[in-house]
């Protein structure tokens, strides 16, 4: 066996070990209900804003504190605490992907990914329904 073959095998083995250890770091998508069963575990929630709860954000007092309510597709509700500024157009987004942990009865959120009807590009489906403003 050539030295280069041995090195190749070792490197492949290392790559496989790396990938296997990566699977251990992976997290999961949960519902509000199942997330509450696993307090302290890092997970992802797919939710929308709960419009019945007012959004608390006052940059004068603390620009790094945002509280809002969310609701998942099964109707589960939870309050979210996010230690950062309020993302622009958060209230307009159709769907939020929240990363974080349930702690006590709130969801301590570390990042918010917003799914807007058109985050980066137009969604042709959304636009088909969009009425045109006639300004004549």
């Amino acid at each position, binding site marked *: 066996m050539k030295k280069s073959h041995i090195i190749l095998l070792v490197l492949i083995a290392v790559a496989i070990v790396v990938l296997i250890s990566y699977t251990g770091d992976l997290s999961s998508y949960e519902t509000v209900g199942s997330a509450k069963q696993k307090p302290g575990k890092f997970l992802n929630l797919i939710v929308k804003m709960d419009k019945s709860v007012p959004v608390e954000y006052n*940059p004068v007092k603390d620009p790094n504190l945002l509280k809002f309510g969310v609701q998942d597709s099964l109707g589960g509700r939870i309050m979210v605490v996010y230690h950062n500024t309020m993302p622009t157009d958060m209230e307009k987004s159709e769907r939020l992907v929240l990363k974080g942990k349930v702690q006590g009865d709130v969801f301590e959120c570390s990042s918010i990914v917003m799914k807007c009807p058109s985050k980066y590009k137009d969604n042709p489906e959304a636009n088909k329904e969009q009425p045109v403003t006639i300004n004549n």
Partner: protein
Amino acid sequence: MNTANNPATIQFIGEHLLPGNIGYILTIVSLVASLVATFAFAKAFFTNEIKEQGPWQRLANIAFVIESVCVFACFGVLFYVISNHLFEYKYAYMHSDKNLPFEYLLSCFWEGQEGSFLLWSFWHCVLGLILIKTSKKWKQESFGTLMVLSFTQFCLATMVVGLYFFDIKVGSSPFILLRNEMNWPILSRPDYLQLLKDGTGLNTLLQNYWMVIHPPILFLGFASTAIPFGFAVAGLLKKDHKWVTPVLPWATFSAGILGLGIMMGAAWAYESLTFGGYWAWDPVENASLVPWLTLVAAIHTNLIYRKTGGSLKTTYLFYGISFLLIIYSTFLTRSGILGDTSVHAFTDLGMNGQLLSFLLVFVIPFFLLFIVRFPALKEPNKEEAIDSREFWMLVGSLVLFLSAMVIITITSVPVYNKLFDQKVAPPEDPAYTHNQVQVFVAIIIGFLTAVGQYLSYKGGGKKGGFWKAIRFPVYIAIVLSVLTIIFIGIQYDEKTVSFQVNLYIALVASIFAVVANMHYWLVILKGKMKSAGASIGHIGFGMVLMGILISSSNKKVLSWNTTGINVIQKSPDAKNPAGNPMENITLFEGIKTEMDRDKKTGNFNYSVTYLRDTVDELDKKFFELKFVNKTGGMAKDSFYLYPDVLKNNKGMEGFSANPSSKHYWNKDIFVYVTSFQDHSKEDTIQFKLHQLKAGDSLFYSNGYVKLEKAIINPNANRPAGSNEVYLQMTVHSKEGLVYNAMPGIKINGQEMSMVQDTVRAQNLILSFNGVVDQAKGILNVGLKESSTLTNLITLKVYEFPFINILWMGIIIMTIGFGMSSYARIKQLKSA
């Protein structure tokens, strides 16, 4: 298509249908011509009769030229449609508007999938024409390559043709009319174009000069990987490996341009996006990085094969997989499969099946061919010497290749989810999962880059010769490393100690790579330019590594919110998943705010004042911020930064922020506005009157106000005969901060005027409204709490030290690749 509007019966007013019809015809002609070119090049490639070859070659060339002309013309027509604001075309309506400056009209062109496919196709044509023109000596190889290229062109043409074959939509044309696509009622009115005032515009994030230049360069990089792939396929088909020589200028050019294109995207992200960095291991970024890694690996194994006859199989595999990964990345970014994991993928156009076919039609035949030919790829059955250049080059190439495989596997998790209907989400810190692995790659590649050229092919140099040659750069590198570690270091300690140690080792490796290659070029090659490409490219690569390590691991948040003590108490502890992202500082208009407290001295290193804001004609709101740099206790210099926010278009509410940076030679101060409140409107809140004595206090929403004492005539320079009474008051906020206020009354004969005092940071206005009971000392104090007192913004400020090393490294590396490519062309000509 929509049947509600029956175009046959309505005469629409003001439509320009000619450009669209021309465009349709051009795309169809280019589709057919590329198919003809594929077939004719295949005939010319496979035939053994010289006599037969000539006519096929002529036909193929003509077809390729026709196809190229069609693609160029198509490009022109689409640009005409966009720049003339012909909103009857969906592409113009969706991707542009009338207010856009001219240069951004180009960005509109490649905002959508159709335009960017055209751009890709455009570069294939340019490269193909150059190959036809320059490949006199390597005719056979170039026929095979052009066959593959023409077939790729055929596939790309199907993406933009927009035809229906038996109810299956093939491609999406950039020339479709808005009224044929949308169900809007007004589109059935004959005068709809008068009602459709403007397009929906270009995404605000893309309105940046990098977005004019980055996509063309990146797509040139994408397109250029097809040439080495074509050479490799031709080589496999004919079992003839002579192509490894003419491929070299193409491959080095491709790696240079692809690397440049990727990093221009990084520069765009740094300047225009607000994740506070240039690289986020986003799937879209990864998907373009990975082919670059395998391409660089392929160039190195190619060199090994040319010098020693070894590494032939890996050369084929690496060139092949580089192009296949480009198509795979196309599939990832355009199919919408990345969905939740990437913020900047294209919109799904409903062409997933077609995109998947595009991928498989290259992947399956290539691997079948590779496996069939595998036994025929003969390499010398000789052990590489451990002190030979080829041995370590191979190790480096394998490391690059496997690093690429690890990155792409992790990036492909959404594909795995889709295939197996799983719901696996990315880990808590996705960037760290990559960083902790890739730091080892940086270490290995860094050291190999340093020593590689000092080893000779086939090994067995003079005894001790290696050490003699490399001794000097080793000493220099040690000295520089020690200095760098002492004066700059790696401040990043949020993860494990071993990760920090690895970062240090990688830093040393990158310094060694730069020094050793400089020494090799200047001393061993005596500074000659002719063969300096490799050394200069490696210097650039070392600098890139160095720049990444120093700037990212020493990135510092300057805007830690330290204004309120209470805020710190509320700050999440280590158990909190949010970590400690109190990175936003609040600024009130006109009020100086201190920032970045020095841990040792307790002094603030910077102060920042939000002076004013203006709105330009494109509705961009600029904030004028004055910074004073007081690092080291002295007010050294002040500078102004103008971050801006632009109102989002495309039916979105809110704003997108554009950062602004101050560039020092050794660091960048990077600033962006995270939110703003505009309170320049009329204030309607009334004062509330309270009766107080000295020593009394009254509450407001965020604390209390205390009346300390009344001061009579504190100002000696007052006009004669006038009297002044001021109240010395203190405002105590919940956060524990104390502000002074001095409302007062001036009496000048019969005239009385009130002097209000405001505490802007607390949104308070205080007034002294006269004496209620002189004997008891009861005074009338007015208090107004107003949220509409002042404009405020929240700001993030980062410091990126030595980021210029990264940008310079990119430029130098690209120059190095260019020089190598040029030198290889010269070699081919003189051979």
